[in-house]
């Protein structure tokens, strides 16, 4: 058993153990324990990875393990990570662990909740370590489908509708993706091995056909405009931990996949389509930001904000240079953390005030200082305040985007950059309405302060935001090293 497979095995074992436990408290503890071990393992892997790199191991992927699965179809169980995947693994572990803590108070079908949540986590971990398209796709779907139950059973509001819409759109996207994966398979000498495919040159006509399928297929999960509409409804109805995990990690499956599969494997087509998708992403950035301005439901605000931020990721990817890629990956991590904290806080607020309507709240800074302060900090991170992770990511993307003097590029870039103002507007609007101002509801004076598991959950995710914001170098180095191969690859096709 190699160390990466353990990442999948541990959650599976946790789930199996959970099946035999009926005490709710025990279920929570075991879930926390299992994912805690998972997190430690991830850190251990990170350490090992950096040690390997420091020792001069410059192969593209480390800790690889290649096991034949379906021999005749050339399907392998092939895992391995590079810096980007490692970063995503760390993100996943952190957010998942935080999610477990945040959900501590779920009483209805506790076991089932944790089982679904951990299965979701398994899918995500598996996805990020996969280097074989088949396993990757498999884990992708494993990650998506528990969402239905999680939202449908433990959600709020029009949860059935939201759950169905989300699942269908995402699975519809994965269906499109499937076609593209098959196309890649057949046009690159019948292999799912991404490393091998990358070495091969798919015929350009095939790339032209399959690139949009793959990109959009992943793009839907990444809330690429105009395929984002599952996201507001889905997030609004999902329980806290699920929103966290979904916006924080699952949506990154989309962006990561678009990058790793669509762009990495079909660089020529990526070049050709870049302007189109860049425009789409830029529109998404500004569109999401404007969409958030008029919302009154906190989760909707955050969902639209996610559309905007994820648009930025796609935008960065389509800028087709190393800086923007770094930014895009950083933004994945940054947005993952930020939005996880956001949703955690929203969950805490909702749990107390039983409303998510910003108009009904006010002056919470006075009543719930911990939650409010964290909210402000994360809000600031979201609007790209220096010293927090959002800034680092955005600046990389912007600088990258401006490395192309093409007029249309410039227009899109300026469009995307302008979002920083609109973002400020909606973030400050919420902060102003909800946290500041007079307390609008007398009953709010009695709200309980944040309890231990909420603090642990929120801080777990908040601290990396600050850490990345203050000292980005270690992370950018990690990412840029891995990007080297991809960039070389793309550079071969004229950009």
């Amino acid at each position, binding site marked *: 058993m190699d160390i990466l497979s353990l990442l999948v095995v541990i959650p599976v074992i946790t789930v199996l153990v959970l099946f035999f436990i009926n005490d709710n408290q025990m279920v929570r503890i075991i879930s926390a324990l299992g994912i805690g071990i998972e997190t430690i393992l991830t850190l251990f892997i990170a350490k090992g990875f950096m040690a390997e790199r420091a020792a001069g191991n410059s192969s593209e992927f480390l800790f690889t393990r290649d096991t034949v699965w379906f021999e005749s*179809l050339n399907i392998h169980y092939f895992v391995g990570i590079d810096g980007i995947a490692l970063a995503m693994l760390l993100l996943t572990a952190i957010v998942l662990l935080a999610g477990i803590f945040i959900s501590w108070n779920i009483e209805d079908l506790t076991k089932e909740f944790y089982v679904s949540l951990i299965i979701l986590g398994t899918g995500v971990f598996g996805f990020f370590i996969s280097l074989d398209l088949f396993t990757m796709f498999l884990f992708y779907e494993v990650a998506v489908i528990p969402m239905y139950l999680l939202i449908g059973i433990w959600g709020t509001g029009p949860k*059935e509708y939201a759950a169905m819409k989300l699942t269908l759109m995402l699975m519809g996207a994965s*269906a499109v993706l499937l076609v593209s994966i098959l196309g890649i398979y057949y046009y690159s000498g019948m292999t799912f091995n991404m490393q091998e495919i990358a070495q091969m040159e798919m015929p350009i006509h095939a790339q032209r056909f399959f690139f949009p399928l793959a990109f959009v297929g992943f793009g839907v999960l990444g809330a690429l405009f105009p395929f984002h509409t599952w996201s507001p409804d889905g997030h609004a109805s999902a329980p806290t931990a699920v929103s966290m995990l979904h916006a924080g990690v699952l949506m990154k499956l989309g962006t990561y996949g678009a990058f790793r599969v669509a762009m990495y494997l079909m660089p020529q087509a990526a070049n050709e389509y870049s302007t189109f998708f860049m425009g789409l992403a830029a529109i998404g950035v500004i569109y999401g930001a404007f969409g958030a301005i008029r919302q009154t439901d906190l989760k909707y605000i955050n969902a639209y904000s996610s559309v905007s931020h994820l648009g930025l990721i796609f935008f960065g990817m389509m800028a087709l240079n190393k800086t923007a890629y770094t930014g895009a990956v950083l933004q994945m991590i940054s947005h993952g953390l930020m939005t996880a904290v956001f949703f955690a806080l929203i969950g805490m607020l909702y749990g107390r005030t039983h409303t998510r309507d910003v108009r009904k709240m006010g002056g919470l800074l006075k009543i719930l200082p911990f939650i409010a302060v964290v909210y402000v900090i994360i809000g600031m991170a979201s609007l790209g305040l220096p010293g927090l992770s959002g800034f680092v990511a955005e600046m990389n993307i912007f600088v990258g985007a401006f490395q192309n003097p093409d007029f249309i590029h410039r227009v899109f870039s300026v469009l995307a950059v302008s979002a920083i103002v609109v973002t400020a507007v909606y973030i400050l609007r919420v902060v102003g309405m909800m946290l500041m101002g007079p307390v609008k509801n007398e009953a709010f004076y009695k709200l309980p302060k944040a309890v231990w598991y909420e603090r642990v959950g929120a801080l777990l995710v908040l601290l990396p935001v600050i850490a990345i914001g203050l000292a980005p170098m270690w992370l950018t180095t990690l990412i840029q090293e891995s990007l080297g191969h991809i960039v070389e690859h793309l550079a071969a096709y004229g950009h």
Partner: protein
Amino acid sequence: MNNYLLMRDEFVLLGIILLLLVAEIMLIGKNRKAVVGIATGLFIVHTLVGFLPLAEGTMFGGSFRTNHLLHNMKSIMNVGVVILLLQTWTWAREEWSHKGRVTEFYFLIFSTLLGMYYMISSGDFLMFFLGLELASLPVAGLVAYDLMKMRSAEAGVKFILMAGVSSAVSLFGISMIYGISGSLYFSEIAQNFHLSGLGALGLLFFMSGLAFKISLVPFHFWTPDVYEGAPVPVTSYLSVISKAAAVFALAIVLFLIGREFVSVWKPAIYWMAVLTMTVGNLFALRQKNMKRFLAFSSVAQAGFILLGILSYDQMGMTSVVYFSAIYIFSNLATFGVVQVISLKTGREQMDDYNGLYRTNPKLALVMLLGLFSLAGIPPVAGFFGKFFLFMAAAAHGYYWLVIIGVINVTISLYYYLLVVRAMFLRKSDTPIESFQAEIPVKIGLALAVVGILFLGLYSPFYDFILNLTTNI
């Protein structure tokens, strides 16, 4: 010289059928519940014996042929029947043994199964036709088995009339093929059967008979009505075993005599696949009755199988058999649950399933796995089955068909999730009460679940089927 061992499967099954007749006579005036145990036990033995390897060869001057592939197709069907019988255990003991019709049930089931054996093992059209009829006609009796239920009889009439038309049309086709090639033997037909208008007509007319059994659009209309009206075990049998057998037969016959008619049947299959997937899904969307719902779902599933047939090579054949095997398990899991609940409570509507998870979590989980497998959600087996079918189709460049297929997978997911919604999300004022199923039923469900969980992930199973299809 005939090596009669080649017909081992058929002989053993025939023996069981005869034994049942004997048992029926011996048990006159006694409680016939014992028949359930005898029949199930004997069939399990038969299935186990069936796993023993069998030589390849032909008999009766080519009328009967067998090889590893055919033999294992039978084994796959056997396993399905075993699961079905176990699931029907309670039904047979509680429901039919009181009405004095339990032996006949097994008799008819086994007869039709024997018909299917002959159908897929046939070496000429006569045997094929007889196998087909043997596999169809007694089923009509089974469909109309609930004598006091109008719906059952109505379903029986619909089935037998439609079967009559379909076999007539199919025979018309066979007669043309015979007219062209001068023989009923597949091996001889293959030599004389060259592309011609009449040949195309013959082949298509012939295929329509099988399309009827697989319930491909536009030959599927009987399916939902019959599935809904028939007793659940029979529905289950029809949708699983009977369909799989027809799929195998279609694939085999096309491989045997369709070589020169690729340009004829491929477009036909292509459009039938499109129609079948789409129509099946569209109709399934709004069904409220679980059996009817599963009927349309199985129509749609049949459409996916066509993708494998369409690719017309080893990979395609493998994926067809592989998918069918997985489909058997998946559908049996869902039908098993429907059956148990239908027997215990008589409730078959989707709304009745509201809140099932809270009262009967295990049943709901089995159902969930079955539905996910049907929907093609990993890591359960259905995902692998569908994926390989799509792979097989894509291998021949049918990307648009694959796109239509995956869109349909999404639509199908919608209605499968409706059931999941009912079971897990909804709550009910009058939920299905918590109850315990009998042990054989549990084993039946468990076997199906095991299949769903492991057939996909366990790649040697795929390789095994691949080895079988080397020589086609």
